[in-house]
């Protein structure tokens, strides 16, 4: 089975480039050149060097003793949270800023939801000395102020988007409109495996470093490059694309993608596109998306701004269609609980997005002692407000007393957790302070 994009820019029946004629020359130019550029020795060398010395790759593959014992599995965490700027997003922006240089583009635009991709883009633009304009929904600007400040400190112009519902979907629309108005000098750094061909393929290739490293690290640590299962969260799907990439043709490796289910599918307050979506076109790509009976795109809901997107990359729509990847859903609360579990067991505060992947440990069924790799796509300092609110709301419950399936000794690992059955919620705010630049 071939999971790569074909010559026409499609993954099975998904993908393509449904762009207005105004963007055709740009998209075509990129399509004609991206592989040639990416495969040139000079590009490869510089990309690899930057990933190593600037981003800090390879990111560790960390064996989580305590999650392993709790779930009777061998749980490994791929630590994308340790990258420069705090998530996997930088892998793609490093690649695309070099691409922009090779294409001779002097002006960079990007969209951002939570601000992670915006910060990663502003970062590489600062390093490259290029003008950077980031479109961000006005709602997100208000709720992600620290990332807005980072982008501005890095020299980017953040434009609050007032159209539509003022979140990621609208920020993406506005970035595309800007590109239409400034086609000659501008390169659009899309942050996920979405958009018109060749973006999904290009971004997946830049992110594929994640699974390439996983293979090497697993071989070193377990003797085999192949785990039993890989789990990643998926909004647009770039970290999942990277974590799955080099395993797509390893049928023995089970691949699980976890969508954000917000308040639950039945409430309609969800961002689980595979579960709630149907075939359509969003941001230039034929894929699955959430829409009304009239074909109007629906605003999704997830507490996690990075997964709050009504579509999914065409690669993932195809992987679902071809039954290569299993899709699970995790609600806001399931993700929050999983975030606290990792924090308390391993001293790692994950991004709320990545916490959706962690929630699969509780939701999925696994063979005893199988090897599971979870792509920990980002760190959680940006999510402290959500975590603080959750602690307050849960102060009368002992969050960590859930009994996992197939782990009779689970109680052992809940010992020592005073959190939070006293009336005073723990104040973790100083931990957030550690990550403030």
């Amino acid at each position, binding site marked *: 089975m071939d999971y790569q994009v074909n010559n026409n820019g499609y993954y099975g029946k998904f993908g393509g480039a449904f762009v207005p004629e105004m963007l*055709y020359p740009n998209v075509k130019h990129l399509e004609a050149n991206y592989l040639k550029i990416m495969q040139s020795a000079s590009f490869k060398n510089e990309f690899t060097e930057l990933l190593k010395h600037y981003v800090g790759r390879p990111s560790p593959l960390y064996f989580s003793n305590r999650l392993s014992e709790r779930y009777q599995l061998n749980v490994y965490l791929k630590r994308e949270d340790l990258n420069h700027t705090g998530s996997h997003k930088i892998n793609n922006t490093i690649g695309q800023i070099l691409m922009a240089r090779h294409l001779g583009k002097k002006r960079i635009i990007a969209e951002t939801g939570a601000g992670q991709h915006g910060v990663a883009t502003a970062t590489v633009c600062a390093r490259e000395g290029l003008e950077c304009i980031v479109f961000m929904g006005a709602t997100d600007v208000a709720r992600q102020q620290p990332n807005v400040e980072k982008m501005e400190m890095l020299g980017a112009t953040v434009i609050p988007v007032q159209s539509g519902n003022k979140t990621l979907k609208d920020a993406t629309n506005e970035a595309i409109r800007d590109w239409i108005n400034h086609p000659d000098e501008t390169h659009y750094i899309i942050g996920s495996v979405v958009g018109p061909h060749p973006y999904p393929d290009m971004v997946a290739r830049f992110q594929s470093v994640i699974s390439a490293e996983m293979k090497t690290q697993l071989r070193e640590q377990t003797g085999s490059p192949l785990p039993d299962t890989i789990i990643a969260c998926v909004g647009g799907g770039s970290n999942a694309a990277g974590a799955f990439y080099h395993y797509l043709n390893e049928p023995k490796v089970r691949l699980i993608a976890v969508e954000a289910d917000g308040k639950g599918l039945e409430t309609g307050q969800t961002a689980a596109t595979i579960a709630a979506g149907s075939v359509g076109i969003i941001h*230039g790509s034929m894929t699955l998306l959430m829409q009304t009976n009239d*074909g109007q795109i629906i605003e999704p809901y997830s507490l996690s701004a990075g997964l709050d997107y009504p579509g999914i990359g065409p690669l993932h729509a195809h992987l679902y269609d071809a039954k290569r990847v299993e899709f699970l859903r995790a609600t806001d609360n399931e993700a929050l609980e999983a975030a606290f579990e990792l924090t308390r067991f391993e001293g790692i505060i994950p991004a709320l997005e990545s916490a959706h992947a962690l929630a699969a440990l509780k939701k999925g069924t696994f063979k005893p002692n199988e090897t599971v790799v979870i792509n920990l796509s980002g760190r959680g300092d940006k999510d402290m407000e959500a975590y603080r609110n959750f602690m307050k709301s849960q102060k009368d419950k002992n969050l960590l007393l859930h009994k996992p399936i197939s782990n009779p000794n689970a109680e052992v690992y809940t010992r020592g957790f005073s959190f939070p059955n006293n009336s005073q919620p723990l104040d973790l705010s100083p931990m957030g302070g550690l990550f403030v630049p």
Partner: protein
Amino acid sequence: MNRINELFQSKNKNILSVYFTAGYPEAETTVEIIKELEANGADMIEIGIPFSDPLADGPVIQQSSQQALAQGMSLKKLLSELTSIRQNVKIPLLLMGYFNVILHFGVENFCKALEKIGIDGVIIPDLPLEVYENSYAKLFQKHGIIPVFLITPGTDETRIRKTETLSKGFIYMVSSASTTGTKSGFDHSSIDYFKRIAGMSLKVPVLTGFGISNKSTFEQASQYSSGAIVGSAFIKALDKPGSLSERIQGFMRQLRN
């Protein structure tokens, strides 16, 4: 013969096509606007199907689309309102909208409905030429629906020739690299581009769109092509005080006289 072809046979200069968003400014004004436009001298009308995410549109059409949707407009409702439009209206009518809405409705159902009503053509800005050619050309032809494609200053000659081949009505020449209603008037590079296209002696007529907001831009555009399309400027005019009829009359008068 399709009304679009009839129009261009009878007239090859100063053709005025007017775009507006269905369901705007009020939920039930669509049919009235069409009739008023015809009565006030529009040669052709493009009826916009509102979409939640209109990528090629500037703020004016975005806002009109959002308001139309909020007021309950949908493709189904629009088609039902247009059912008997041909009892009164004789000029060519086109629907303009983004592909997702049409895809979701069903492209074949869409073509059938348009044929039944007597809609002459469609403009679908995010349906690429190649996809149209490979997947939908036969269907549109079968139902006598004329597709209209865009060319821009960035469209190269080979692609313009391909557009010419696939175009059965007219070519929509986008005046500059922009979204709708973003720029006003034409700079030197736009004029050079108009001349370049005029010099190609295309076998299908060309209408100029984007950046046409008043008499002088309309006349300037008409100098190099068969006429022009007005969209955002008309939608703005619909917001002005007075009865709908007065607003439309006033707008058409300043454009034409």
